[in-house]
């Protein structure tokens, strides 16, 4: 019961933070609202008995990725100077597209109404997750190492290009 209430409250917080982000002009304030949404998501993971994911959400999303965003906003003065002025038509079309996406998703998954998720807090050990990662998902997991290596090389190449160019 209390877990269900926690899930609803935290998801309302996340939705509110995302909604406020839509109307926030200041990029750093928008980043802080995104941080609120990500931390609420960590709370949702905790209520869903995914303790490791909650910790990783705080460390990885709210820590590392958020720092990257703040650094990117700081080193690009254009992010501050540019005032977003999208056309009224584009704005209305974007909102309409989002509403259509939501309606379609809700309609498609109406068959989920008969399923129930096991309520109650339970401990999901890291051992069980590690068994999945190094057992069934070993190929995907190793491939992921390659993806991260490629992204590091790509980011370094993009960042260094300017200095080495004549």
């Amino acid at each position, binding site marked *: 019961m209390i877990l269900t209430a926690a*899930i609803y409250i935290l*998801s309302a917080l*996340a939705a509110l933070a*995302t909604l406020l*982000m839509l109307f926030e002009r200041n*990029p750093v304030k928008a980043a802080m609202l*995104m941080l609120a*949404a*990500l931390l609420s998501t960590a709370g949702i993971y905790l209520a869903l008995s*995914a303790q*490791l*994911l909650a910790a*990783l959400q705080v460390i*990885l*999303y709210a820590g590392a*990725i958020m720092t990257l*965003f703040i650094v*990117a*906003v700081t*080193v*690009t003065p*254009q*992010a501050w100077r*540019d005032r*977003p002025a*999208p056309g009224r038509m*584009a*704005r209305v079309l*974007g*909102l309409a*597209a*989002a509403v259509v*996406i*939501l309606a379609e*998703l*809700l309609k498609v*998954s*109406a068959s*989920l*109404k008969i*399923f129930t*998720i096991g309520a109650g807090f339970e401990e*999901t050990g890291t051992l*069980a*997750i590690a*068994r*999945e*990662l190094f057992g069934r*998902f070993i190929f*995907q997991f190793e491939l992921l190492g390659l*993806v*991260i290596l*490629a*992204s*590091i090389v*790509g*980011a370094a190449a*993009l960042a260094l*290009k*300017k200095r080495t160019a004549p």
Partner: protein
Amino acid sequence: MNAYPLAAISYALFALAAAGFLTCGSLVRMLMFLELMLNAANIAIVALGPQPASQAYALMLFAVAAAEAGVGLALIIAMASAFKTLEAENIKDLKG
């Protein structure tokens, strides 16, 4: 707890982030909303999937999100120095 409200929560978060992605013009902001969309999909996977497997999958998606944010922000910084703007509408040249 019924599975449908859990799915609806992640759909709502996804749709809000998608609305932000489609309506805002700044590239940094678009990447932020993209991360939030991925985050909403992660919630759906963790909430609806079979327990240890879905969490392992979500863990891998975290790594994908981190890699995506790194490359995306490097691209944005490179574009900011090449085009002197971060508004998607002002970037029209294919050859910077």
